[in-house]
């Protein structure tokens, strides 16, 4: 899978590149509007990450160019602004998703995977890990082809782990992704642990070959 990162901040560009390359993605980068446009025009990618605030151009303009060129890549807009107008404008222009900085790497991976999956119309639309399969369109989980019933929050929680297998996920990232932005005060995040305990039990009972472990202080990891 090929990903293009168009981001002017070198530090951010590099850390994202490293994280993605760890996931075995092929990563290319651009640092401003012109180099971004250049890369878009010359190559094809599976997913493009565009920062809205770029030197000598706006990320939204790049998005327009992309659509004008009828390119089929999945596009995720990243921005520090978290402004509703930007979000709406971006999504209206055809972006697949919008991420506000700062984001957790796990979140980025999840969004990239979802965007690519939604964008590709060929092939089966599912995520698999060992003997577990999730079909996101139907919100269906099967273990050894036997359906597993989870409540809404448990599904969202598990989906997050499935999309980030073997990665240490920050507990705040999980809380924000599954329960929303209100849950941003760490002394409350123990409730996340109790939900994960329930999830682990259900997985174990279904015979799933996956275990979620707590990494004390940081978060959780599904192996």
């Amino acid at each position, binding site marked *: 899978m090929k990903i293009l990162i168009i981001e002017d901040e070198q530090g951010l560009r590099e850390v994202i590149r*490293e994280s993605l390359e760890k996931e075995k993605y092929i990563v290319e980068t651009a640092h401003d509007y012109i180099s971004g446009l250049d890369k878009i025009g010359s190559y094809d990618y599976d997913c493009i990450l565009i920062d809205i605030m770029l030197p000598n151009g706006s990320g939204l303009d790049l998005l327009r160019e992309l659509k004008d060129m009828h390119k089929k890549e999945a596009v995720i807009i990243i921005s520090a602004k978290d402004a509703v107008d930007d979000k709406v404008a971006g999504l209206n222009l055809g972006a697949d998703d919008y991420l506000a900085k700062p984001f957790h790497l796990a979140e980025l991976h999840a969004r990239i995977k979802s965007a690519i999956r939604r964008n590709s119309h060929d092939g089966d639309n599912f995520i698999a890990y060992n003997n577990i399969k999730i079909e996101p369109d139907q919100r269906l989980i099967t273990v050894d082809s036997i359906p597993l019933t989870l409540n809404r929050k448990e599904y969202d929680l598990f989906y997050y782990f499935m999309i980030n297998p073997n990665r240490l996920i920050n507990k705040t990232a999980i809380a924000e992704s599954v329960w929303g932005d209100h849950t941003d005060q760490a002394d409350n995040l123990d409730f996340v642990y109790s939900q994960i305990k329930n999830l682990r039990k259900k997985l174990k009972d279904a015979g799933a070959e996956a275990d979620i472990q707590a990494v004390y202080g940081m978060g959780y990891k599904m192996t």
Partner: protein
Amino acid sequence: MKLRNYTLRYLIIALLAVIAIWASLFYVVILDEVYDNIDDGLKNSKILIIRETYADKTLLKTTEFGIHQFKIEPLPKGPLYDFSDKFISTFEFMEYDDDNEPVRLLETVFNDSDGNPYKLTIRASMVEEDELLEDLMIALIALYAMLVISIALLNYVILRKAWKSFYMMLDRLKKFRLGTGTTFKAPESSVSEFKVLGRELEDLLQRSETIFTSQKQFIENASHELQTPLAISLNRLELFVENNNLNEEQVMDVAKISDTLSRLVRLNKSLLMLSKIENRQFTDEEMINFNALANQLKEDFEDLSEFKNITIRSITLGELHYMMNKGLATTLITNLLKNAIVHSETSSSIDIVIEKNAVTLLNDGSTALNPDIFNRFTRDLSKEQSTGLGLSIVQSIASIYHLKVEYSYTGKHAFKIIFPTL
């Protein structure tokens, strides 16, 4: 109109003073003229009478006024008499008026054709001062009244016309809203002062608008600049933990750094929100149903509250609807609810009470809170992750929508937001 009445009031008082002074002067001048006239008449009569006595000696026998308006009294021959004229104002009884009326007398001494001295007294009826005064007063009052009425009328008509453009300017000023991109255009006026005022106002508001926009820009850019290095730091730490085999203690250390950075992120986001609220950058408004909002938020916080075994109850005493920005309405209730949950003990309860014009959040507590909790950055130090800005944001939102936020302690902590009755 206040300005008109203001000028009118002073005009009327000044007019009164002017007319009073003028009237007194006029009265004195008129009387003087009248006296002069009468005196001239008397002097003329003297000449005629003395001439007549030379022709007709019998006239010298008129010792009483009688039907003549003069009397002649013989004087003993003797020392030198003063032959000058003497004028006296006095009163004499007049049958017609049945009252003492003022008269003017001319007394003089003359020598007849034989050289005998005689005292001649000539009388003339005078203007009755008090009646003159009375008539003058009535005339003046009438004049004053007419002047006042016509001035008031003229005042009304002229001032209205002259100040028309000023009132138009006031109206446009009232409608002007900073930050909405509308420009203030002063209305046309032929009055140079208003022209200058209009121009200065246009400039001033233009400058304010520019400053406001650049401030907005600055805040947004500053936040952007802050978020990026924070993002890089957080992500670098995440990668660090993933890439290296750290022991538990080392992971904990990294976790602490991550948590502190996350706190910075939240602080930055809250500060940004506070400035945006205070700069009125949330302009979209819709009619918010607070009963529905409260229920939705109750659901959102379900897992968190269940974990702490806190029961959240919705008590509906009325329907609350209000026109405001949806995001801000959500933040308003969320912050209060979040505070209630975070600062409540396990196995306690929280009540959300909604009435027709108020929302109250009640939660258990043993002692009342210090009212300075509403100050920025005041926080419960045991809650390490608290930014101390939650309540400040609540207050900022409340102030731009003219809501009142009250805290009271009646065995339970009660945070109440009062909406104005429409």
